[in-house]
């Protein structure tokens, strides 16, 4: 541990905060709070100065790698550059110093922004209405599936089955189960796509929905999408679109036009809001008109230029977030969409796809490409060749860290052995792409000539390879 824990800076009696003197006559504490509920022992939080805190966390930040440090080619995560102006905007006090229970009149400006964002997302996706309440992609999935559940309940149809391809994100089956469905996983065909024949066999009058990512997690566009949609719809089921890969299709295809009924967006992927080391995200849900009554309450509406929250939603699934969702993230996404505009969004997708295809072309000689189909914004390599020489995909990933670059998503999707899932995004330039490609080439060479150096990676990071098995066997989760 290069940087000690903040508690290790402790010096008894040291403080790092200031508050004004209390300006009212004080009462004896036990006169205002029952003795049973007064804390016996002060919580053992740090006793440190402001400078200690600043130095400590600055030092921690120096041990971190973000998009601002370099390429972050995590497949399905869309780690694009997070524009700084959006951070400034999200910090304007006129936008931040608002209480969620202030009256609608007080927050017209913010509601205006949110309303516009809803509209933009609807246009971009071809859906009819959007809720901004879900706070993450998985939260959006849960919301969307609860909408589907409510829809069938309303129709007095008891449908229990949700179908997901084996290449789906783990959140898909997990969300379906949380929404009370049974999950059926279907095998992809040789091209890495939904096998229409298997789907036909599986879809029946118990099918509530098919969840699909398009392009899928292999970066491959499901070319049979119209037929797939027909199969599901003819059986009375609905189509759910996992929007994780939307960066691949802006201006080229819309989930709504592909006949999807419900979808979620990941504002922290497609719309450039920072991932924050794991969150906050934001997972708005778009629906077709017939599902609008089931949207979470309240629904943002406009009447003659006045914005208001409609709480009279008898068929709604209810609330999914205590307030209005991750508002600060929405402000950033709005700013992003306005900055890029209609042309910029399309150009974004074009360059994301160009970058990915360029990398695929350059990397396929050194690494196996298990699905040699036309792919869009991401692609999946296999480290099988390298594995035979003794270096696993994990070793390759760790070796990348030695070269000061982040690793792709590994061991996902599950349909590829030793998977390396690569998504460069549009904001990386040719030099950065080439640097990553050269590094990968160098690592492939190392695996041939000096596999030990790869197997023992990382060598240059602040810590060497950490023992995850030990962490799980003997959980040490607090100081």
């Amino acid at each position: 541990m290069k940087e000690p824990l903040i508690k290790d800076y402790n010096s008894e009696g040291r403080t790092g905060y200031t508050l004004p003197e209390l300006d009212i006559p004080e009462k004896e504490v036990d006169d205002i709070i029952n003795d049973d509920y007064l804390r016996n022992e002060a919580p053992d939080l740090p006793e440190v100065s402001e400078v200690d805190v600043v130095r400590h966390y600055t030092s921690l930040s120096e041990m971190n790698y973000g998009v601002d440090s370099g390429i972050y080619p995590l497949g399905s995560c869309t780690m694009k550059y997070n524009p700084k102006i959006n951070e400034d905007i999200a910090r304007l006090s006129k936008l931040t110093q608002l209480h969620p229970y202030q009256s609608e009149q007080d927050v017209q400006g913010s509601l205006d922004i949110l309303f516009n964002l809803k509209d933009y997302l609807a246009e971009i996706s071809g859906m009819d209405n959007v809720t901004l309440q879900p706070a993450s992609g998985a939260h959006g999935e849960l919301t969307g599936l609860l909408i589907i559940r409510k829809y069938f309940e309303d129709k007095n149809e008891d449908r229990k089955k949700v179908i997901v391809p084996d290449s789906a994100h783990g959140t898909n089956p997990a969300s379906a189960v949380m929404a009370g469905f049974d999950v059926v996983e279907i095998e992809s065909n040789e091209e890495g796509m939904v096998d229409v024949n298997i789907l036909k066999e599986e879809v029946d009058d118990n099918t509530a929905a098919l969840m699909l990512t398009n392009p899928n997690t292999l970066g491959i566009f499901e070319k049979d999408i119209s037929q797939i949609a027909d199969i599901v719809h003819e059986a009375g089921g609905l189509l759910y679109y996992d929007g994780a890969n939307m960066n691949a299709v802006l201006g080229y295809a819309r989930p709504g036009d592909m006949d999807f009924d419900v979808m979620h967006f990941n504002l922290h992927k497609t719309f450039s809001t920072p991932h924050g080391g794991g969150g906050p995200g934001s997972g708005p849900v778009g629906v077709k008109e017939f599902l609008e009554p089931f949207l979470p309450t309240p629904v943002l509406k406009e009447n003659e230029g006045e914005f208001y929250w409609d709480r009279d939603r008898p068929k709604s699934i209810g609330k999914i977030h205590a307030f209005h969702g991750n508002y600060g993230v929405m402000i950033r996404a709005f700013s992003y969409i306005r900055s890029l505009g209609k042309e910029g969004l399309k150009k974004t997708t074009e360059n994301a796809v160009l970058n990915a295809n360029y990398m695929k072309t350059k990397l396929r000689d050194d690494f196996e490409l298990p699905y040699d189909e036309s792919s869009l914004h991401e692609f999946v390599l296999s480290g099988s060749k390298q594995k035979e020489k003794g270096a696993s995909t994990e070793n390759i990933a760790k070796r990348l860290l030695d070269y000061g670059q982040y690793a792709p998503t590994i061991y996902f999707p599950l349909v590829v052995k030793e998977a390396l899932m690569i998504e460069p995004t549009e904001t990386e330039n040719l030099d950065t792409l080439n640097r990553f490609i050269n590094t990968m080439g160098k690592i492939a060479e190392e695996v041939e000539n000096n596999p030990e150096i790869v197997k023992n990676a990382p060598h240059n990071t602040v810590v060497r390879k950490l023992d995850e098995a030990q962490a799980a066997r003997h959980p040490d989760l607090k100081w």
Partner: protein
Amino acid sequence: MDYISNTPQERKQMLNKIGVENIEELFSAVPEEVRFNREFNLPSGISELELLDLVKEKADKNINLEEKTSFLGAGAYDHYIPSIVDHIVSRSEFYTAYTPYQAELSQGTLEAIYEYQSMIAELTGMDIANASMLDGGSALAEAVLMSARITRKNKVLVSKGVHPSYRKVTKTYTEPKSVNLKNVELNNSETDLETIKENLDDETAAVVIQYPNFYGTIEDLKEIGKLLEDKKALFIVAANPITLGMLEAPGEFGVDIVVGEGQSLGNTINYGGPYLGYMAIRDNRKHLRQLPGRLAGATEDKEGNKGFVLTLQTREQHIRREKAPSNICSNESLNALVSAIYMSTMGKKGIKEVGYQSTQKAHYFAEKIDNIDGFEVVNKNNFFHEFWVKSDLNIAKIKEELYKEDILAGVNLERFDEEEGLLICVTEKRKKEEMNEFVNKLEVLTDERTSH
């Protein structure tokens, strides 16, 4: 402005390498019948300057807390946030990072989360805290689901002192799982223990109490803990963590799961989000297996150096898929970092001081209001920094009149459809003159009424 750096020449060069003529060719796999063949009906792109102007113009329509004196609380609290919080959290190595799956290049995030977990465990008096949940409402909902899984029972007694919105979120989450949420009525502003006694049986998965509760009242966790002592049902408490510098930790009362909204620990009020849920449990393997969310844990590298990783990931959706205890993936990591910085900065003394000042001020204020004819503080003397006022006067009218004096008088309970009155919150930011002005105005309103 589109943030794309490759030039047309570079793009040409790349297309050549790929072996296609133009970019459109790369989209050949998108079938014609689903092609989007028109321009987006969206505005064109704009420069930074134009964007700033445009947003500011909209933002100017807002009236914010800097223009008013706010006594609003009800789950979103306006505490002072030390300047260093935003400075540190603005370091882009933190905020532009992804979930720390590659631990060796993410030690900053991981160590900070480990510290956050440690300090949450310390404040709540529990053993294990996770790396954050989406918000207070969903944290409670997930705790209730967790209790049903652990006990294999489905009846849950939920106090009406729990934030109405948390209860609504919990209802949304638990409906598909046929969890039977049974409301426990309040006696005045406090959970009625008799109702718990009557309804607590072998089929009960959990009892849920908020501390201090939605109306500000400090619930009798000690007695409720006793009721639950020899029962299988779990004790779930939703607590506002900023009160726990002064209030006894829920962990001292036999609580099994503590959850809550962590916003009060240094997070901007931000119209309700992003905030963070927190969740803390006992060191119990059975419970740990059912705990949703990520966990940072300490371990060693091969040279024996201490470091941090995401651990016990086999519980999570990306590994367990449909068998995972929750679908949670993205959490509120950056907000957890904010809270870690806040807790470190305020420290042992400051966290108590914030609570002490807030509660002293709230009691000063409540006493004055209670003394006005036609006003009554429902909680009497048992509350922390938030209290419930009933009045003979119309609450909406009171709010309206005080708004004219630039005071946001509190939350009108009408919006939650359960009780009537005004929920007033006082943080350390409120000044004596502001409270006195509020009281004066209420007296004027009362006088006006009597003179009519």
